[in-house]
């Protein structure tokens, strides 16, 4: 990656941060209001995303991966959520200091989202074309005619056949895969620097999944944007991600480059996830599963949060506060006390 630092001109605002980091998150803590009071659902998550790369965030449901991204984008319900972070920087925007109104200026042109449920994420009462066009009207001040024309172009770009006719139709006239293409068109409309894709293929058929992933990859290549890909499917991770952040019970437990992580996992949870993944080279091998369930919010175990389910858990793992993240190799961190003694099995 060539760093174009410090040059004057239109791109200066983006380059003058001195690095090619688009999103920097340091010690993000999110509390949500539950029936029994405030509970911490994201606990000290840190990561950054570089220009043009795809960061995968992996974890079981309830691990806090969606909340992490919704909080960054300011999309958690304000009165039931508290978001704190040491750093939350998106290009030159300090997201911790933005008012809700300023935040809404950022959503769309700088960061945009694709959600899991293409069936319910589009408004049933408006045409698909209008739902794309309104983003352009809002952020780029495009006229009705101009925004409509560009909506058709975007539909064409994301591979919706006969886009001019389809733009005048309503979401219920689209299949799941086509709706997800529309969602991608909406996310793409203002050429954002970061796209957060929150399990974008989970609700789709396998063949459609592959098409949508291919489309996302293609668009990323074309526009050089950063993508945060939230998923629980390691197959998808292996397919699209450059680096991976593994989350468990609201914390990041391991992060590494894709190959490092798959070949040399340093946290027992990641080993468990890999063992639960079907292997192409040895399909007859029985799939392992991780025993037990993730802890509930507000009832986190002492010590390492994974220890009740960990086959390697020792006495040291069960008490005190959660172990700290340790750097075990270049760009590879883990939250396991015993990482040095253990030899964990990968799934290259």
């Amino acid at each position, binding site marked *: 990656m060539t760093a174009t630092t410090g040059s004057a001109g239109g791109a200066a605002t983006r380059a003058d941060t001195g690095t090619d980091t688009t999103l920097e998150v340091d010690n993000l803590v999110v509390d949500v209001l539950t029936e029994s009071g405030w509970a911490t659902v994201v606990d000290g998550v840190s990561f950054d995303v570089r220009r043009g790369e795809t960061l995968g965030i992996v974890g079981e449901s309830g691990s806090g991966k969606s909340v992490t991204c919704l909080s960054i*984008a300011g*999309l958690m319900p304000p009165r039931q959520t508290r978001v704190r972070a040491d750093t939350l920087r998106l290009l030159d925007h300090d997201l911790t200091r933005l008012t*809700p*109104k300023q935040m*809404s*200026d*950022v*959503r*769309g*042109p700088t960061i*945009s*989202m694709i*959600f899991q*449920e293409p069936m*319910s*994420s*589009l*408004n*049933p*009462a*408006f*045409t698909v074309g209008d739902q794309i066009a*309104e*983003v352009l009207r*809002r*952020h780029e001040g495009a006229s009705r005619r101009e925004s409509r024309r560009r909506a058709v172009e975007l539909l064409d770009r994301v591979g919706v056949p006969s886009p001019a006719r389809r733009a005048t139709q*309503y979401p*219920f006239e689209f299949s799941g895969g086509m709706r997800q293409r529309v*969602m991608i068109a*909406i996310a793409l409309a203002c050429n954002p620097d970061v796209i957060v894709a929150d399990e974008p293929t989970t609700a789709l058929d396998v063949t459609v999944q592959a098409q949508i992933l291919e489309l996302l990859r293609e668009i990323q290549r074309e526009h050089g944007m950063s993508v945060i890909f939230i998923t629980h499917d390691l197959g998808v991770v292996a397919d699209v991600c450059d680096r991976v952040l593994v989350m468990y019970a609201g914390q990041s437990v391991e992060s590494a480059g894709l190959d490092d992580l798959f070949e040399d996992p340093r946290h027992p949870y990641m080993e468990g996830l890999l063992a639960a993944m079907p292997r192409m080279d040895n399909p007859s091998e029985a799939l392992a599963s991780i025993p037990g369930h993730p802890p509930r919010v507000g009832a986190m175990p002492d010590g390492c949060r994974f220890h009740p389910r960990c086959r390697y858990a020792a006495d040291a793992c069960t008490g005190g506060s959660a172990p700290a993240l340790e750097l075990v190799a270049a760009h590879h961190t883990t939250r396991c006390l015993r990482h040095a003694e253990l030899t964990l099995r990968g799934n290259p």
Partner: protein
Amino acid sequence: MLKFFLTRLATTVPVLLLVTFVVFGLVLLIPGDPAVTIAGPEATVEQVAAVRERLGLDRPMVVQYWDWITSALSGDLGTSLFTSRPVATSIGDGLPVTLALAGSALVISLVIAVPTAIVSALRRGTWLDRISSIGSSLGIALPSFWLGLMFVLLFSLTLGWLPATGYVAIEDDPGAWFSHILLPALTLGIAGAAESARQLRGSIIGVLQQDYVRTARAKGLRGRMVIGKHVMKNASVPLVTVLGLQITALLGGAVLVEQIFGVPGLGQVALNAVTTRDIPVIQGIVLVAVLVAMLSNLLVDLTYGYLNPKVRPR
């Protein structure tokens, strides 16, 4: 949309026909012989027979119906048995006043209900929400005749801001019309406002939890746009149902409110006709009321088509 409109319009024809049967059949349902009533208690059998013949009450039902329907179609609803005024004229005088009253009541109830519902849905559980919830309970519970009297006491007699009774046609003096219609319309509209506010608050809360509202926010749309466009169009569907029902209720309620405020609407005409068993007038008024109800149902259905593209025929 045009096709939808025409289809929907065509379905009203059989209903309308059925309604004319029922309205005409009213004569049969009402106890007592109108000829006897008109001729008076002292009349001889011959006099009653003469009246009956003059009114055509002695002819076969089918012939009577045919006469009635053909003249009704040409705008002749017969003449009152008592005042000898053409029914169409009485209705023509009263209907615009009643429609103006009911229409203003509807507008007032929406002006109250929509902002209240939005605020209490967005500030759910706060004191603002609780106050508006208490307010709408009161609005539904308090009878309109009591409310009307309280309004007169407060705004007319104590503060002297608005006239207590009377009516001025809008084409004569719009300002005077407004000041005369405000209190009756408020009285008539407040129950509807309370009901609509409740209904709308509930559906807004439901819609706010929909994924597409999160999508709208994720697009960076301003709060005003998210609520005004994405939430309201979907949340309005149950409201429209309620409004459709309210329109007919407003016509009924207008009878009472017209009495309280001395508004010369259809209510007075209807009341007189019912007490004197003035069949042609009753028929005319019921026919008009049914037409208004059907028209409002038609409007409701068309609004559904606008709000929910799924119900439009393709």
